[in-house]
């Protein structure tokens, strides 16, 4: 069995700060990490490998330095990785990203595609289902449990108010929640293998079969017109007094606003 895991390198958004004077995003010094949901997807693939044997292949699209997260994936136990990197892929929205990744997956070939539910820098959750559509596979979103049963995959999906248990014939795509598991750490031996033994293939524009109108900026139906910091409302009044004064202050304010 071959499992492809889609992995995105993202800035750690928990570390992003806003410059209070200019209201702009301070990106300097923000570490790049493996997207948490994708890491859970990788762990899920590695557990299937541990339990019943599988070849686990990491796939990422991004700038050259996205190689770092793929090396991490190899060190965790992935067997090989592919990095799609080319200026021609740049500026892709979720539509073009999923069509590009789908084209690469088609060429590599697999029984199961695992992706994170969403990336923490975009929070769109659109690339996984998009890939599945381009490949003509079922997508099973929000997995909190994945089991392989012969040629089927059985997934417990977390919807808003209910849990679906769903069976699909493979090939299929599953999007994974970070709650699914606790990803393993890299081992020293694994890190050694990741850099010395295992294969990381870099593919450019000409290495994948896809039309120009389905990649990059040109293949993207959406454009960002502008981005801006969130408008912040003026703060109210903060007091630092004893408990009794504080309670009185709250009650007075709520009365003043006719909430009480």
């Amino acid at each position, binding site marked *: 069995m071959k499992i492809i895991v889609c992995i995105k390198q993202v800035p750690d958004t928990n570390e992003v700060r806003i410059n209070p004077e200019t209201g702009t995003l301070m990106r300097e010094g923000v570490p790049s990490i493996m997207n948490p949901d994708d890491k859970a997807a990788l762990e899920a693939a590695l557990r299937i490998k541990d339990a019943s044997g599988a070849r686990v292949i990491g796939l990422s699209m991004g700038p050259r330095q996205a190689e770092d997260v793929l090396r991490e994936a190899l060190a965790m136990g992935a067997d090989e990785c592919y990095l799609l990197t080319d200026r021609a892929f740049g500026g892709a929205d979720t539509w073009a990203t999923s069509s590009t990744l789908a084209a690469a997956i088609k060429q590599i070939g697999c029984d199961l595609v695992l992706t994170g539910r969403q990336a923490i820098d975009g929070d769109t959750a659109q690339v996984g289902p*998009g890939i599945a559509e381009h490949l003509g596979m079922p997508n099973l979103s929000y997995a909190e449990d994945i089991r392989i049963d012969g040629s089927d995959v059985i997934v417990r999906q977390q919807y808003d*108010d209910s849990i679906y248990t769903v069976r699909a014939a493979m090939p299929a795509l599953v999007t994974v929640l970070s709650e699914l598991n606790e990803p393993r750490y890299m081992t020293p031996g694994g890190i050694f293998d990741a850099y010395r033994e295992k294969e990381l293939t870099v593919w450019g524009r000409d290495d994948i079969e896809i039309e120009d109108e389905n990649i990059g900026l040109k293949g993207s*139906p959406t454009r960002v017109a502008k981005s801006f910091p*969130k408008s912040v409302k003026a*703060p*109210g009044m*903060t007091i630092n007094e004893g408990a009794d004064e504080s309670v009185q202050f709250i009650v007075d304010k709520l009365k003043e606003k006719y909430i009480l």
Partner: protein
Amino acid sequence: MAYKGVFTFAEQIDGVLTNVSYELIGKARDLAKDLDEDVTAVLLGEKISHLAPELIAGGADRVLYLDRAELKVYRTEPYTQAMTYVIEEYKPEILLIGATALGRDLGPRLAARVHTGLTADCTALEIDPENKELRMTRPAFGGNLMATILCADHRPQMATVRPGVMVREVADPERAGEIIQLDFKPEKNDCYVTVEEIAKKIGQHVDITEADVLVAGGRGVGGAEGFAILQELADVLGGEMAASRAVVDAGWQAKERQVGQTGKTVRPGLYFAVGISGAIQHLAGMEEAEYIVAINKNPDAAIFSVADVGIVGDLFEIVPKLIAALKKEI
């Protein structure tokens, strides 16, 4: 035929329309007015025709519904086929879908199929007065930044919309509208899945987006036991209890009570933030609350920057006294 009209996906579960279905219609009315077009709600399911008049009362000019057994419970493929049929047949200018778990599964699949753009989790939508394009605004970077997105050359312009952000219209049972039954049969293919079981989540009755008063606790509450006094405060005010992501991640409270970028967006009349430091991702989910009271022992906590009333102090000392004081007032 030119693309025309503002369409909304009316999400129903077990024959009940979700709140966001009405919120979408409320927003669609604004957009349709600016475009001088109509609002159409699309309703899929089995034995759901009785919901159509509710959608008209909620502000739709027209309801298209498809009543089929294979649409009884949500599955990606037949729903995508049905919505693809609607898009091809009726050519909407704009299609809005609620950014629920279901909508965020259906939306991208559908957009990929009909080859158009989709903007996820929008919190603001407006029509550009110059060129009549839809301007879709959404938070990005974990709520650190807002981005306005356009879909210039593909139709429909599609967006999923955050629940709890748009405002539903007051229902008017006298409103007139057109109700059309669709005739379409989804075709079985390799993308079909078998639903083996659907288990309802326990405590599903809690919907913090509906509460007018929320008492939310954060890491500062110290543990699951600490929430007892927050529950008491919520009870006194006739509200619900909510929680920050740290609290949900730690397992002190259920996920359905989580407020924030990765949880729910709420806009209650009164929001108590107790022991919550105010990470950007939390603020993204609650700063639209009408009145915010924050209690935190750290005077530099970011939550005070959005609070109408900020109290620096020990929540375990203040909250019990506040409960006692409120009991006298109410």
